[in-house]
């Protein structure tokens, strides 16, 4: 593994060689880059990548140079005598079998070491997070604290993490490139007399610094595959714990505030739109699929909406989380995300009937959800 001083230099070299032909592509941010490691797992892969890239570039340059030389030097020339009819050379054959074999061994040894290293649970009290792939969004569960959320995976920076993954439907693949390689997310199957569940897959890593890292599904899973995105929000340990605690405490607007105590007959201080939204939500089919902590909503088919107003995006990393976008999403999700399972206000979806909400009701639901922070 190269030292930390050498790594940026090698990275630079690779970036330069690969990027030169597309100068423009070298500027700007690459939030989903696979060559910008931000975790120990990604570091291991990246140092291997740099090593193998150097080997292969050397071989490429040698082969291409010899080829170019041959093509120029031995082009047809009537002044040269007819070529000598050689049939082979044993020494050469042995040489160019052994040299590549040695290079292959040089690549295989660190590779196999990394294969074992990256598939072992990390030491130091790892946090287990359960990831469940759905068409086309990600469910995130924290078994130790009973917290369930979707598409935005909060993780403590600096603490080892174990992602235990499975799928609710077809095969997906979990990939947040800056935090490491991808791992397929497979449906579980029951085997044996006991009906034991098998098929979990795992990822082990430690995020280095707080930050937001983009990812998306990497195994074709159907029409909405390209829009099945997610992000990891890495925070300091204390921020992370605060986030967990917040989740368990219902947010202020989840249920209606108690009736005003004073007898002046003043209207409650609550935004009437939020109140209407709450009422609409809990009397519509929304709650058949969605759950909100502390409210009479316990559906499990769709994403858990506890504190959804605090999320950065909606629709699995698709749209910025604004009331206007929430309105668009609830009204007609299929126009934003083909293949989505959620029905729209007028359109059926995923085998479910339309919600039959009016625009005003949809706007109210959006306002209510936005208020859940």
């Amino acid at each position, binding site marked *: 593994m190269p030292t930390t001083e050498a790594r940026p230099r090698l990275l630079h070299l690779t970036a330069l060689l690969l990027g030169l032909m597309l100068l423009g592509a070298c500027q700007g941010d690459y939030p989903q*880059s696979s060559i910008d490691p931000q975790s120990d797992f990604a570091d291991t892969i990246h140092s291997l990548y740099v090593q193998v890239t150097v080997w292969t570039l050397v071989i490429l340059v040698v082969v291409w140079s010899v080829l170019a030389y041959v093509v120029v030097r*031995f082009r047809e020339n009537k002044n040269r005598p007819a070529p000598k009819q050689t049939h082979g050379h044993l020494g050469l054959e042995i040489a160019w079998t052994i040299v590549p074999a040695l290079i292959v061994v040089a690549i295989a040894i660190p590779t196999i070491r990394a294969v074992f290293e990256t598939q072992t649970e990390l030491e130091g009290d790892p946090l287990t997070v359960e990831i469940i792939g759905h068409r086309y969004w990600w469910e995130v569960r924290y078994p130790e604290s009973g917290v369930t959320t979707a598409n935005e995976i909060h993780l403590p920076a600096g603490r080892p993490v174990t992602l235990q993954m499975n799928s609710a439907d*077809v095969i997906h693949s979990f990939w947040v490139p800056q935090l490491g390689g991808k791992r397929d997310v497979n449906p579980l199957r029951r085997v044996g007399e006991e009906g034991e569940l098998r098929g979990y897959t795992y990822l082990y890593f430690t995020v280095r610094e707080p930050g937001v890292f983009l990812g998306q599904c990497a195994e074709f899973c159907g029409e909405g595959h390209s829009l099945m995105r997610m992000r990891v929000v890495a925070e300091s340990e204390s921020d992370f714990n605060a986030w967990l605690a917040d989740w368990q405490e219902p947010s202020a607007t989840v249920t209606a505030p108690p009736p005003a105590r004073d007898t002046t007959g003043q209207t409650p201080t609550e935004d009437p739109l939020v109140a209407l939204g709450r009422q609409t939500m809990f009397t519509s089919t929304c709650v058949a699929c969605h759950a909100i902590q502390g409210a009479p909503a316990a559906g499990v088919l769709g994403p858990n909406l506890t504190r959804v107003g605090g999320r950065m995006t909606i629709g699995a990393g698709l749209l910025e989380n604004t009331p206007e976008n929430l309105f668009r999403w609830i009204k007609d999700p299929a126009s934003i995300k083909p293949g989505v399972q959620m029905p729209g206000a007028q359109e059926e979806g995923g085998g479910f009937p339309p919600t039959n909400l009016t625009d005003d009701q949809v706007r109210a639901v959006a306002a209510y959800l936005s208020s859940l922070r």
Partner: protein
Amino acid sequence: MYFVTALVFFVIAGVEALVIRMQLWRPENDFISAETYSQMFTMHGTTMIFLVAMPLAVAFFNLIVPLQIGARDVAFPRLNALSYWIFLFGGIFLNSSFLFGAAPNTSWVAYANLTSSQFSPGHNVDFWLLGLSILGVSSIIGGVNFITTIINLRAPGMKLMRMPLFTWMTLVTSFILVTALPVLAVALILLAFDRFFGANFYAPSAGGDPILWQHLFWIFGHPEVYILILPSFGVISDVIPTFSRKPLFGYPIVVYAGILIGFLGWGVWSHHMFTVGLGPIADAFFVASTMIIAIPTGVKIFNWIATMWGGQIRFTTSMLYAIGLLAIFTLGGLSGIMHASAPIDLQQHDTYFVVAHFHYVVAGGVMMGLFSGLYYWFPKITGRFMDERLGKINFWTYFIGFNLTFFPMHISGLLGMPRRTWTYSADLNVALPNMVSTVGAFIFALSALILVYTIIKSAISGEKAGPNPWNASTLEWSIPSPPPHYNFGEIPTVRSREPLWREDERREIEAVTLKVPDVEPVMPNSSYMPILLAFGVALTWGLVMTGRWWAPLIALAYVGVCVFVWAFEDPFARKGA
């Protein structure tokens, strides 16, 4: 016939590729819908592999192998006709899905359990699995035919180690065909049972295992890669010596390397499955086996370069394509070494980096080798040269368009763009490489059009070619161009590996092969039966789609009748007698 049909499918697959590139021209584009996009990339991949690259290679097997070994025809000419017609009906069946708006849409690898009736209720997957089943029958029949031909019909003196490399690689490929395709057939039949008859082979909810599909598919799928590339290796192993005026360097080593690749190709399938989570021991094994394959492949490349070393290289279009293959395939092979390193593959798997890699291998390696063969053998088959001036334009537009299309995909992949995605977020900052790719794709398409034009123009009015226009060394160049329908009036005797480059041997052979025989050898008549039979085979599979167990049996009975009628037909009956 194979050739023309494959060329038509080549144009169709090319149009599909252009539609894909149009959609990816800019982020969040909506040129086509997500569903149409899925159909496009599924059909592009399936068509290019099963309806273009494989049949193009088979076209050369058919046309060239008998000539190279001194045979009048393949061992089973009637089986050969059947194989062609089944292939044609299979291709038509697969593409007819477009008419129903139900083109396959689960990618060319069609991973279970996405393909189950639950998650893919339409007929899209049915068309795919039945179409491939039909095509598989054709490939297996072809493979049997070529193995028999090469083993049994060689001219006197044509020992195995005197066979031209193209024939050798045809032999190896044919063995892979007859062994790998049945594995695909098994996978497809299990899928058919799941879909049509309610079985649960791949259904996890009932204890089935979707990963079983991946194993079966790749046990077929990786040898398939060698089915594609080995014929091209064979082509350039004949082309490079001819245009360097030197025998192939290290002939036995190149042969053994080809055989070794064919064998090892069976032991590497799970390198397509490093992300599945099979555990470190399985991963480590497949890392090692995959890397070993790099060695014989490298050895081949060194031997080709050594063949050119010290030669007198003539830059015909055929030779340019061969050199192009060397340059491009080397890059594609080396990015393959990166994926062989499992942890790196965890990043690159299913991204555009992999798309770049296999297009360097297939569009750069396989197709360039086949086009090299096209320019090389065209004068033999038609008696006319391909237009060299147009050929050079064709090659250079191909070379530039190809690299412009696929090199930037390395970059978009490294920057996090997954494959099989209908659109990509502007946040990823990969718009520029995608635009370059799209521009490249149009240059690439232009090159394909030039090629089609060149073929048609040259076939009609190309310069006339003699029996051995390139001064090549192998047996096919000893007979007139185009060859008489019986190929060899009298079978010559071969005494060396390069018979036409040894003055005494050449004269001996040409005395036999260029002579017009007094009595023409009798060749079998053509027959309509293979068409009727092939239609029946396609129909049998097609009727499986009804989901009624008795429906295909009706077509099967029809197939039985055809077989009997055909079997009792006298192939040598004189017309009007």
